[in-house]
């Protein structure tokens, strides 16, 4: 449904994302993980040209047989919100504080279709009941700041679903929430996929969220996708040294001590040649100064690393 080919993105002239390649199929949830500043949000936002400063240098994004780069601003706006919807990290901040939730729903729908307020209200309330939001009538008249963070996030997702988009882009949808609210949002997103067959791209640094939601996972480091595969493959038999280190750094319930990764990621302004993870990698050798190549570990599981033999 959505295919990204050799995508390179720069931000104010500095190259950020390099040669990103992946594909989203119908009904599939893709998870993009990585640490702050690895370019995962930039990648997501540039798919719909949400950020003016992030410029696509080369490569293409193909959504249902249309090259998004060829479309006019007008046509993109038609796709945005209608066929592809976006959910941001802090839902309460992405809503107009002067408008009630009811107005918010109405505005979202009216952008793309002719609909009366009554009809919109009925559809929105049905949807909210389906996503198990209690006390729908009170919510309809409330302002965003009168609701809790978890509730706002679930409403933002419900509003994104109003036009029945084919694809939802979610940028850190659970990161500002407590564990209880996180579980609620994850359950809601799973329900939407089952019920409406919506595909999703979820960006998060929370491995738990990605593990529960995603079918396929892309691991990003310093603007490059370093590993790609099904959720099981990436989490249970990771191939890339960075993925392994990242999984070891997650705190566990069993009292084992999480291991940090020494050093810090390279600055984007530095000239990059070779493997970006090499300076922090324990398996580094001389070949790492060359460009890492894709190595397929199974049909759909690949890593960008030169050390196939040592893995």
């Amino acid at each position, binding site marked *: 449904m959505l295919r990204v080919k050799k995508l390179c993105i720069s931000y104010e002239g500095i190259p950020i994302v390099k040669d990103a390649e992946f594909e989203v199929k119908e009904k599939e949830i893709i998870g993009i993980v990585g640490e702050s500043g690895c370019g995962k949000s930039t990648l997501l936002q540039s798919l719909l040209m949400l950020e003016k400063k992030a410029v696509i240098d080369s490569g293409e994004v193909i959504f249902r047989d249309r090259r998004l780069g060829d479309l006019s601003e007008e046509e993109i706006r038609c796709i945005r919100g209608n066929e592809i919807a976006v959910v941001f990290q802090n839902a309460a901040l992405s809503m107009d504080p002067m408008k009630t939730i009811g107005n918010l729903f109405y505005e979202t729908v009216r952008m793309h279709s002719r609909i009366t307020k009554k009809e919109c209200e009925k559809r929105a309330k049905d949807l909210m009941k389906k996503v198990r939001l209690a006390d729908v009538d009170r919510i309809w008249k409330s302002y965003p700041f009168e609701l809790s963070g978890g509730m706002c996030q679930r409403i933002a997702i419900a509003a994104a679903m109003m036009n029945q988009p084919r694809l939802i882009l979610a940028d850190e949808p659970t990161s500002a929430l407590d564990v*209880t609210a996180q579980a609620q949002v994850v359950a809601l997103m799973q329900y939407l996929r089952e019920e409406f067959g919506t595909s999703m791209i979820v960006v998060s*640094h929370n491995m*738990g*969220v990605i*593990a529960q939601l995603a079918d396929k996972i892309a691991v990003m480091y310093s603007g490059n996708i370093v590993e790609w595969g099904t959720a099981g493959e990436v989490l249970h038999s990771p191939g890339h040294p960075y993925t392994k280190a990242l999984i070891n750094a997650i705190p566990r*319930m069993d009292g084992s*001590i999480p291991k940090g*990764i020494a050093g810090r990621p390279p600055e984007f302004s530095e000239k990059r040649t070779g493997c970006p993870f090499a300076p922090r990698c324990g398996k580094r050798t001389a070949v790492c100064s060359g460009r890492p190549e894709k190595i397929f570990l199974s049909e759909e599981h690949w890593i960008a690393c030169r050390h196939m033999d040592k893995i």
Partner: protein
Amino acid sequence: MALLEVRGLKKNFTGKNETLHAVKGIDFTIEEGECLGLVGESGCGKSTTANMTARLLKESEGDIFFLGKRINGGKRLCAAGKEMQMVFQNPADSFNPHYSVLECVMQGARYYKLYSKSELKERAMEWIKYVGLKESYLEKKIGELSGGECQRTAIARALICNPALIICDEATSALDVSVQAQVVELIRKLKEEKKVSFLFITHDLALTSSVCDRIAVMYSGRIVEMGETKAILQHPMHPYTQLLLSCVLPAVGDDEYRVPECSSFRGAGDGCDFYEFCPKICTQCKDRVPDLQEREGRMTACFQRGDPDE
């Protein structure tokens, strides 16, 4: 006597029309060299408790004993002194942006006039090295540091006063996992080598398992369960702790998680705060607040006496 003892601490925020009971009376102690984790959801009162303990906020009721002395009650806040230091969630915001790393760390001790000028600089450099920052960082401005490096500087600033207790209010929550793990390593090292005690506030339950000796679970302004970290994480007794643990999303492994219906705060009212959401209510729950009582080696505030894991 324990290093820190908190007795019957309460905080009410009075508004125009209503009073918010943020902390409804909590008791805990921290022994020397111990790390107590305070966990709970946003709005349950854990930061309010930390701020009252550090005397940044005036309590409504209750007593705080630190190093054998009662430290609350006086007119002045900030009386906890050099022995009790704090590390905040957002490291960059708690520094003066015009200062270099060295100046920031020295500032910590300057207020208490602990050292002479030359000694101060020496000590500061020593601690900056101890927390794992290279010498090239000394003259860097705070804005040039990454989140993890900032947090190390904040810990160095706390350490220069030789504190007996460090209060970490969500000190690792804004950091990436790989950096968070580095800060956790540092905290463990401090506990072992320097015998510093910690009050470690976090909403991340998995993190407590590697940092804390004991944890206290807070809900709606009260401690509902307190005991050994391992015992609580493996066999939670209070229904709220059980619920909280059941909705942690596992990153690796096939554990199931549960989707809860729950709110983290309930205003003043009769009965147990968790009454509305609890799956195991009995007749007493609605009318009386359960006391924190010792049972099987830990403290639990629940009327249910049956098997906890059922």
